[in-house]
């Protein structure tokens, strides 16, 4: 897919997105992140029930050549993981905002979202 940063998402400067719905949010990595990483060939999802902390790595994605941490844009408890990425991690490249989602989290502090970037601010960050 072409480079894009949907307006309905909130962005973390470590190239992660959150789709917030009340006190839950879905997380993934941005188009920029998947492009920088290259072809994702392995993803080992975290466990449902585990906790994630804002700004901390909660999982990792691997290309043929490199490993990259994935950072939590917000804090909470993992209520669902994208099991389909086990067998099809390339969805992270093909559809980073859709089929390439990583975890769904019940937020412990929804007010944290105030510190995230909107699409325009994130795009400005990428342009340095």
């Amino acid at each position, binding site marked *: 897919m072409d480079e894009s940063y949907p307006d309905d998402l909130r962005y973390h*400067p*470590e*190239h992660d997105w959150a789709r917030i719905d009340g006190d839950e949010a879905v997380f993934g*990595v941005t188009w*920029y*992140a998947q492009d*920088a*990483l*290259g*072809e994702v*060939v*392995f993803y*080992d999802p975290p466990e449902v029930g585990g906790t994630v902390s804002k700004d901390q790595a909660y999982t*990792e994605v*691997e*290309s*043929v*050549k*490199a*490993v*990259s*941490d994935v*950072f939590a844009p917000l804090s909470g408890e993992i209520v669902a993981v994208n099991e389909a990425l086990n067998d099809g991690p390339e969805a992270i490249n093909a559809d980073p905002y859709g089929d390439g989602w990583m975890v769904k989290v019940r937020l412990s502090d929804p007010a944290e979202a105030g510190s995230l970037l909107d699409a325009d601010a994130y795009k400005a960050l990428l342009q340095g």
Partner: protein
Amino acid sequence: MVPPASTGPFGGQYLSEEPLASRALASSTSTLRRTPLCDRHVAAGARLVAFAGWEMPVQYEGGVREEHLAVRSGAGVFDVSHMGEIETRGPDAEAFLQHVLSNDISKLADGRAQYSVLCREDGGVLDDLFSYRLGDRFLTVTNAANHEADHAWLAQRASGFEVEVEDVAARHSMLAVQGPDARAAVAALTDGELPARMGTAILSVAGTECLVCGTGYTGEDGVELLLAPEHAPALWDALLDRGVVPTGLGARDTLRLEACFHLYGNDLSTDRSPIEAGLGWACKLDTGFVGSPALRRAGEPLQRLVPFAFTGPGIPRQGNPVRTEAGAGVVTSGTLSPCLGIGIGMAYVPASAASPGTAIEVDVRGKLRTAEVREKPLYPPRKAG
């Protein structure tokens, strides 16, 4: 023989714990050297990274896996102009190289290639090298990261020999054309006959005089071409016109690892002897080369470098700890094999755990992954029986 990256995410030094932001900045250094093919790489959609002081293409538009498979099924071309060349000539050239290189250079026939290592007095490996005998001179190809140190090392030890040891890297570009269709693609650009494996020939290829060598680093048939840098772009263009696919250092690493070729800085270092590394076949102790007394004294190594493959999920990476029934080891190279679809690598393990079939475990950032010591090469796998 690709050296490790001094900076940047690719080429052996994996950024296992760094966020993506720093990865993106890794190639923005301004002091990097460029090969004459730099704008050809950009035109082919290359992702350029810092690699041993050079700005080199790690992959092109298609990505590492696609390039890897192109070399296994067709033909790919690698710009390896960052590698160095040292010319040794003079009445004592052979005697001198016999003194410093591990292999028996007296057995190297004119126009042929020979692999060897350069050892310190204590037997630690300074570099691994290909040398070519070209009439009354020798050309030795070095790893980019080691080139200047290799040249200094050789120059220092040349006193007492009637020999000239010249750094001729600036006079050479190098292209590796590899894959089952590689020879046909190069043959179509020359009237001459391509050299056999481990042979050489000086031929006009695409109108340019090249030293064509029947060597490579992929486990596939193919040739490597050394030529004057100013002619490299024309040769590159001619190869691409024949359908040869541009292939980057990322695929070069996965290809060499499937073939179980050593990468200096990963699998070879000054902390390891060539015997531990499985390069005893290239170390002729009777020649008395520098380091051979230490290797003789050391006797049988306690650890050995072995290829392995994961039997479950995961990708091994350089530095991952290894557990065996006989004790601990360490992964020196690891990747996902594009051809096998599983994690593969090389690791130093206790000698009693080095037999093919031995079950081992690899600690990949806190997760224990199951693996098995394998025969080399990992790809193509040896047929049973």
